[in-house]
């Protein structure tokens, strides 16, 4: 049996948390809460079962609880912000574009796309993490991809707007 080391799972948890929360501090807090919760619930994990999916499941659960417990972030539509924002450097245009479009996806589509495309998770594991049927994973994934493509194609020449809630650095 392969030994799945916890420490190897942490970078991916951090990455997903960062994109999920859009905030480096909030993301690390979420990862820490996840690891602590895992310590308390460890007896539920069985050797040989998928450690990564289990940790992501715990994290997603905590994230949803946080969302419920805290007042929702005020989301400002990018398009209402006009020109008031700083233009990013040009070489990062397409990356920022992607990031911006990603943040405009509905949350349930974004989580599926991130787990599958960014974290390279199997559909079954993504379904487990999000606690939804695999069929729902597939339909959300299809919608996420179609929507992301639309968004990207709508704004090829609009790289000057910074995403609103972006506090990545």
């Amino acid at each position, binding site marked *: *049996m392969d*030994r*799945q*080391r*916890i*420490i190897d*799972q*942490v*970078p*991916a948890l*951090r*990455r997903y948390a*960062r*994109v999920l929360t859009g905030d480096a501090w909030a993301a*690390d807090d979420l*990862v*820490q809460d996840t*690891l*602590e919760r*895992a*310590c308390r619930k*460890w*007896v539920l*994990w*069985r*050797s*040989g079962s998928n*450690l990564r999916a289990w940790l992501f499941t715990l994290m997603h659960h905590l994230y949803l609880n946080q969302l419920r417990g805290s007042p929702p972030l005020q989301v400002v539509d990018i398009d209402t912000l006009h020109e008031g924002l700083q233009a990013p450097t040009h070489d990062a245009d*397409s*990356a920022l574009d*992607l*990031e911006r479009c*990603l943040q405009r996806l509905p949350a349930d589509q974004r989580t599926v*796309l*991130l787990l*599958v*495309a*960014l974290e*390279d998770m*199997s*559909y*079954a594991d993504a379904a487990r993490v999000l606690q939804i049927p*695999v069929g729902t994973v*597939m339909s959300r*994934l*299809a919608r996420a*991809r179609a929507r*992301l*493509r639309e968004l990207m194609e709508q704004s090829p020449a609009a790289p000057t707007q910074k995403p609103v809630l972006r506090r990545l650095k």
Partner: protein
Amino acid sequence: MFDSPQRPFDENDLHALADGQLSPERAQAIRAQLGADQAERVAHWAAQRAQLQSLYASIATEPLPDVLLTAANRLQALQDRQTQLWRWGGMAASVLLAFGLGWTLHGQWSGQPTSAPLPMASEQRFAQQAALAHAVYQPEQRHPVEVDAAQQEHLVQWLSKRLGRPLKLPVLTPQGFELVGGRLLPGESGARAQFMYQNAAGLRITLYLGALNGAGADETAFRLYADGPVPAFYWLDQGFGYALSGSLGRDALLALATAVHQQL
């Protein structure tokens, strides 16, 4: 879900293709049949994937803050303990349950239809308990036995008293096995003793014994119980059941069982 190469493909398969979640055969079969429009979409999604991964790649290579390292290490310690526990043949919980319930749940546990659990002779259940007890204690590093071989006299007196019969410790030194010690265990019909032996290579065998209700005074031949976590040879002798368990080949285990039997 996405396996058989010959099945006609649908939209989900296109996603699975872009996500690399198909078997190579299936992926190849689908690629060969893709229309231009489908191929373009798959390529677009794959590019989206690559772009996403490169966009956030740096986050995963940042050094971890101490607080996360500490939390991860604490969890790792728990995992190591748990893995150890399950690696004992994954049997610890089953054994406790089984001893507690007198094996009434056996059918369920072993995956046999619960509606019609196979009746198992008490000798067989005895052998099964022996094999499970072996799987539980054999990997134990710190507490393989309750009383170790250094207190052999005490061990024999104690277990003789608890099992209600003067016991003899078989000597397996000629076969390369030295006594590690022994412990007392609960059995279906009373106390059981487990003696553990170990050879120079660290391989452990256990002798499990105790009074069996309904076992007559007669002696039975050796029988092999092979459905447990390790094989066990078991036999009855004057109302007592004996089982010798170990991860050994049939012949080697039988030779040891014979040596034990001759000394009892």
